[in-house]
Each structure stands twice: as structure tokens, then as C-alpha cells.
């Protein structure tokens, strides 16, 4: 059963009609006119999907980025990484299931891959805390990034989080410090870090993993200093204004490429990554692999300098 977003209702109606017709056909005599009708409706639905997804508003993209069927970290790892060997724990307090990482092979090459996992169903979402990592999650990330550095493995980070977890225990254990040190670790190491925002890039909790040499972004992913609802409730004093806030924040891949905050956009299948997960996942895999290739033969110092210069230039170069 497909789940539709609010703005997809016209598409849903068409597709449901197609389903109904198919069912009718299933009991009956294979009437030719039904087949024709189905084809007509299908091409209409496809066209509508194309049009709708061709001009998604920032708020609609926010919903697509949060779509429950959108591929998550575990899906990427299953499809892209051979011999994945998860590594757990921060060696200080706990293992945070919101942040997963480990070593494995991406297209034959050993990499360290890590990122937030949101969970696929209710049970999974609770287990993974909706992709909101606690300090131990970021400290695990730091440990893995530094481990990769010692063995010269490229680091791949897949970012998908509404933000770092805001809670009493997280504060007590130094959420801010953990995030700061994670960003610092990304900027420290002499191996290439390739980040891809695959869903939600929520504020500091995202940047802690996304301070990479290359930052890629899926076409309908979002990346923002604050989620639209939060921004609306502070600046507009009403969470209802999230739509306006989403517009104002310029959080889409297109905007961020213009602002030179990201390096490239990975196109999604028509109708979003959740409609054709395999294609979306393999597009991300190919883009990451190509990005790692860009750093072949570079020394640790060159890689470090590249990353530093890249971030120092943001906002200084290419803005009106």
C-alpha cells in the first residue's frame, strides 16, 4: 500500500482508479476498453507526477524528505555496501542506535560509512529515536571518523536527521560539545569525507556529519539551520506558518547549490526517492563513488586543506 502526501492527492486518485480498473479486469473477461482506459490513466498519472515533482515548493520538499518510505541509512548500506561490518559504541557511555556506522566496501573500495537512521516502522523509529542522535552517537561518529583516518579509509556520511536530540540527559552529557567535536573531527582528518544529505539535514545535528570535502544532496532533500516549524514558531510566533518559513529559509538542494553550500545535486526518480528506492540508492552510490575518485592520489594535507578552503570560501565567494 502506497502512502500519499497531501499534495499528491490528485495523483492518488488517478492511481486508485487504475487499481480499481485492474481489479475489475481481474474478475472479468479482459475487455479491451479497460486496458485502453488504464493506459490512458497511467500516462495521465505519470504526467501529473512529473509536473508535480518538477515544481515542488520548499514545504512540499520538506514533506518528501520526511516521507516514511524514503530510503534510510540501513537501506543504503544493504544495497551499496558489501561486507558491511557495523561498529558500535562510544567507549564512554552507550551505543546510540540513532547513529549507525561501520566499515565495508563501496564498489570494491574499503570505506567507513556512517549516518543517522530514522527507522522504517513504529518499532524501528522508537529504537532509532527518529534519527535524533544523542551525545554518544556523535562520540561514536568521532571515534569512527578518527579510526578511518588511521587506516586511510574514505569516510562516507549519510545525513538524515530532524536534529540532534533535545533532552535532559543529552544536555547533561554534553550534546553541544559532542556535536562541536564531531564537526571538528570531520575537519581534522586527512582522508576524504563525502557527505550526502539523503533526507532531512537538521541543523547542528546534521552539520556534525556534513563538514565534508564534498557535500552532495538528493534532489528533494532539505538542509537547514532550523526546521521550518521551529523557525515559524520563533519568528512568526506560530508553527502554522511553517510553509512561509520553509520558503524563507532557502532549504532546498537548488537553493543550496546556488549559495555554494553544497557541491552537487543527485537527481531523484520521478515522484521522489520513495517511488523507486533502488534507483535512488544506486544514484547516491554512484555519486559518492565518483566523489571519492576526485581525491585519488591526494595527500592528507591536501585533502585537509581542500576541506578547510572550501568552508572558508562559503559566503565569501559567488554570493551577490
Amino acid at each position, binding site marked *: 500500500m502506497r502512502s500519499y502526501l497531501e499534495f499528491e492527492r490528485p495523483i492518488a486518485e488517478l492511481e486508485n482508479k487504475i487499481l480499481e480498473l485492474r481489479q475489475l479486469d481481474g474478475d472479468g473477461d479482459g475487455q479491451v476498453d479497460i486496458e485502453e482506459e488504464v493506459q490512458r490513466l497511467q500516462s495521465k498519472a505519470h504526467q501529473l507526477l512529473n509536473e508535480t515533482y518538477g515544481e515542488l515548493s520548499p514545504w512540499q520538499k520538506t514533506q518528501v524528505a520526511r516521507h516514511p518510505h524514503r530510503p534510510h541509512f540501513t537501506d543504503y548500506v544493504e544495497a551499496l555496501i558489501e561486507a558491511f561490518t557495523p561498529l558500535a559504541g562510544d567507549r564512554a557511555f552507550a551505543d546510540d542506535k540513532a547513529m549507525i556506522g561501520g566499515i565495508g566496501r563501496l564498489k570494491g573500495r574499503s570505506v567507513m560509512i556512517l549516518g543517522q537512521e530514522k527507522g522504517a516502522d513504529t518499532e524501528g523509529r522508537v529504537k532509532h529515536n527518529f534519527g535524533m542522535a544523542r551525545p554518544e552517537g556523535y562520540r561514536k561518529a568521532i571515534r569512527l571518523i578518527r579510526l578511518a583516518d588511521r587506516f586511510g579509509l574514505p569516510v562516507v556520511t549519510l545525513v538524515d536527521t530532524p536534529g*540532534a536530540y533535545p*533532552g535532559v540527559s*543529552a544536555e547533561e552529557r554534553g550534546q553541544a560539545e559532542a556535536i562541536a567535536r564531531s564537526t*571538528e573531527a570531520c575537519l581534522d582528518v586527512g582522508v576524504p569525507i563525502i557527505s550526502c544529505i539523503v533526507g532531512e539535514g537538521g541543523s547542528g545535528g546534521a552539520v556534525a556529519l556534513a563538514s565534508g570535502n564534498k557535500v552532495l544532496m538528493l534532489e528533494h532533500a532539505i538542509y537547514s539551520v532550523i526546521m521550518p516549524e521551529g523557525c515559524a514558531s520563533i519568528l*512568526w510566533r506560530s508553527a502554522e506558518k511553517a510553509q512561509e518559513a520553509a520558503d524563507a529559509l532557502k532549504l532546498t538542494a537548488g537553493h543550496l547549490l546556488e549559495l555554494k553550500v553544497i557541491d552537487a545535486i543527485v537527481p531523484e526518480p520521478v515522484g521522489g526517492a520513495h517511488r523507486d528506492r533502488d534507483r535512488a540508492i544506486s544514484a547516491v552510490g554512484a555519486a559518492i563513488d565518483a566523489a571519492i575518485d576526485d581525491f585519488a592520489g591526494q595527500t592528507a594535507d591536501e585533502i585537509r586543506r581542500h576541506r*578547510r578552503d572550501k568552508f572558508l570560501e562559503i559566503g565569501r565567494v559567488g554570493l551577490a
Partner: protein
Amino acid sequence: MNWLTNFVRPKIRALVRRKEVPDKLWIKCSDCGQMLHHKAVAEANFVCPECDHHMRLGARDRFKGLFDDGVFAELAVPAVPADPLKFRDSKRYVDRLKDTRAKTGQDDAVVVGRGRMGGHAAVVACQTFEFLGGSMGMAAGEAVIAAARAAIEDDAALIVVTAAGGARMQEGILSLMQMPRTTIAVQMAREAGLPYIVVLTDPTTGGVTASYAMLGDITIAEPGALIGFAGPRVIESTIREQLPDGFQRAEYLLEHGMIDMVVHRHELRETLVRIVGLLRNRDTRMSEVPDIEAADPEPVLPEPEIVEDDAVAVEAIPVESDVEAPDPEDDTVVEVTATDEGEAVDPPEAEPDDIEVPVAVEPVSGDETEVEVEPEAVVDEETPPVDPELEIPEPVAEDGAPKRPDA
């Protein structure tokens, strides 16, 4: 540089210069509610004489309490694109900025001063909460980077005094990018072997805490300061339960091992001087370390950057000369409402009387090139401090800490 900028502009500026209205004769302590004479409070470094509450203060007031004799040169910070997102909520961001600049006399939330502390070269970047909640946007990021570069140039200790709700929402992702950018600044200072000391003041939350504020070699907090990643309101609405007593206050963080020490503002300068001295005198036996006052017999103020180009408006002003013009007729009470529009990612609780000390000591115009500089002579001659009243109060430490390298 032409006659217009060189001659006419400063004069015009002098003419249109805002009069320092003596509307700050009295201020109310936001903690104990006591009405206090502004001058007394300023002399006490904006610590309430009644209840010891550490009030918020602007960058320039902070510098006066930190640098030797209150003498510092303000660093010119590279300009940043204005309003790259064309952001607008109930008000246009450019208008908000303009109003705040006029109100605070600062170009943006972070001001950088360079000078000497206990004879040691020091660069201090100070965040002013009154400037759009102290929020970190592109200008603040550039200021922190400029501070690190200046510290490297001067072989100086890098000190950052934080106060911010977080990142500046109105600059969207570009403000978020200041987290890695300021982190790079810290790394540069570290690679140069300079001490990086953070002083957390009330409040420090959000993206600021989650970047340079938590990367200090040594981390100090002022008493009672609210420090955290998520603001208390955000947490309360997430977990829907009562927050523990003293949650996210400086003392709570100390208890949980997140900071090195909580230091009273009256002892802050002495503490910083001692730490910098201890960290940087590693090749000298302690008994050989001269006392702080004589640590550097001929301290040379770093060349003020501002004279390098067409920056003409170098004003030599005696510190706080015209701030206090007590007008007996005017006993207006400063009632400043919390301007939390600028609060960003996770705004701290906004108490109605949140900001008690809106002091813009020097009415600096919006011109980026204009920087106030102390006359250099003050340092080399035996001239007493410009305003002796500004001497920070003697530290209460029993052993007269400024003279104790053997501590």
C-alpha cells in the same frame, strides 16, 4: 582616499553623532529587581551590587574590564554580503539589522578587541546578546575567523566571550555554515600553539555552543549563565516534564564535567591572565617569572588594522568619557524589553526583563571602517589609566593573585 572621506566625513559624523542620552541613569537588576545607579553598576562590571547577579553587557564594556588599563584596539572585520537570502518574516531582515545597529552601536554581534592582558598579548572576540540575540551569522563567523588570524599574527592568546541564542535564522544555511567555519578558526589557533580560552556567559545556546564555544582548551563560565544546546523551552516541549533545578546553569555544567570552572566576573580578568601566563611560560621556572605587571616591560599594542587602508575615522576617545553625563533631571529608568526576535535555533527562555544593560558606549556609526582606537601613547607612557574608575575591582582572592606566579 579623497578629501571627502578624509575630511568631510569625519566632521559630518561628529555633527550627526548621536548624543549619548543619559537615559541610563538607573537600571533594574533583572534578578533581584533592585533599582541601581547605572554608574555604580558599570563600575562593578555590571554585576549587581545587591545580589551578585551577572548582567549582560556589550562587547566594549566587556573589553574595558578585561584588557590592561581598559585599552584595546578594535579589529576591522571583513564585510559580508548583506541579507543573501532576502529574508523576511514580520519584518525585513535588513531593517532588523539596521535598527539593531543603531541601538547597539555595533556592526554585528561579535566585536574583536586586541590588546594586552597582564602584559600578555591577547585577542578577545566578544558576543553581545543585545545584538539580535547574539546570533551567529556570517558576520559573527568572519569576526571569529578574523580574531583567530589576529591572534596568530600577534602570537596572542585567543579568548572568546560567548552570548548567543544560537545561529541566525535569517541567514539560513549560511549561518549554519559558521559552525564548521568557526571550528576551522579554532583549529588554526591551535595549530599555531596559541591558548584558546572560552568564557561562556548568559546565555549561550544552540549552534554557538555546538561549535566554537565548546572547543576551548580551557572553558570558563560566569555564575548562573544558561548554557546548553537546546533551550529549556524546546526541551520541555519535547519531553513534557519538569526540568531539574538549576538545569543548564553554569554550576550544573561544572557538576557534570562540561566546563573547567565557574568564575565571578570580578575575578575573570585575573583568572584569564593567570591561565595564559601558566600556559605560555613553560620555558621559564616559576620563580623566574616576573610578576604580571612587569611581564612585558614594553608592551606594544598591535598595530591597529584600521589604519592600513582608507579607514579614516580613527577616533581617539577616552574610555567611557561621554557615557556618563548624569542629568539630574532625567532619571528615566531603562526598561528594555527582551528582544528575542533575533534568537535563533534554540532560544533561551525570554524573561520579560531579560536584557538589563543596553549600553552602547561609543555611538559608532554604521561605517565598517570606523574603529575606535586608544591613543597608543597611553600604553608607553606612564599615563595612568584613562579612567581610573574603570579599573576592575581588586580580585578578592586572598593571595593577591596578580602577583602570584608561584601559585
